[in-house]
């Protein structure tokens, strides 16, 4: 069974701080996605990474796919209250097989 473990599970930080969320597996994925879900809403796709070692930036968010395509990280610089939400990593292998991570709940305090 493929599993995606995220750490930390919960994170509460002050506005302006930096943070990193990790997503780890023993399995290799063909691609990995990150989503953010706000309370009462569905997850929204932030980024997809497909190549081992790939780094993508989305404003203050930096995503990295591990060289072996088994893990990923999300780094947020100078967090803002609008970054608050549940962050989910999703590993894919094939067209229909999506493995959801356990989630990281982030709260950024003003």
């Amino acid at each position: 069974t493929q599993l995606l473990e995220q750490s930390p599970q919960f994170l509460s930080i002050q506005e302006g701080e930096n943070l990193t969320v990790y997503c780890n597996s023993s399995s290799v994925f063909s691609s990995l996605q990150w989503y953010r879900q706000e309370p009462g809403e569905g997850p929204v796709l932030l980024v997809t990474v497909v190549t081992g070692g790939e780094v993508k930036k989305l404003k203050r968010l930096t995503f990295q796919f591990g060289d072996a395509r088994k893990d990923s990280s999300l780094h947020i610089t100078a967090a803002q209250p609008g970054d608050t939400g549940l962050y989910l990593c999703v590993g894919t292998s094939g067209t229909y097989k999506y493995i959801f991570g356990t989630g990281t709940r982030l709260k950024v305090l003003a």
Partner: protein
Amino acid sequence: DVKVTQSSRYLVKRTGEKVFLECVQDMDHENMFWYRQDPGLGLRLIYFSYDVKMKEKGDIPEGYSVSREKKERFSLILESASTNQTSMYLCASSLSLPGYGYTFGSGTRLTVV
């Protein structure tokens, strides 16, 4: 703006009722999915469909059925609702490309009393 629309944001149903959750997408996506999301358990796949009239069981199909008569619409049916089906239900769609991201609906919070 492309979207996945779920018919209800909140539903309260009685035990034993037949419940229909509707999902419509306007992106011409081939694939559609139904998940439920519960605290501590994350998102779990109930059913998915990769084409009209096609369906595949996910990880937790028991107590549910689905219908996909048109490409844009995917319905989740709770044949006889039970209290352990109280949950947030999320519909999603995607193209049939490996690794293509999901577009999710806003979810339906179902309470079975």
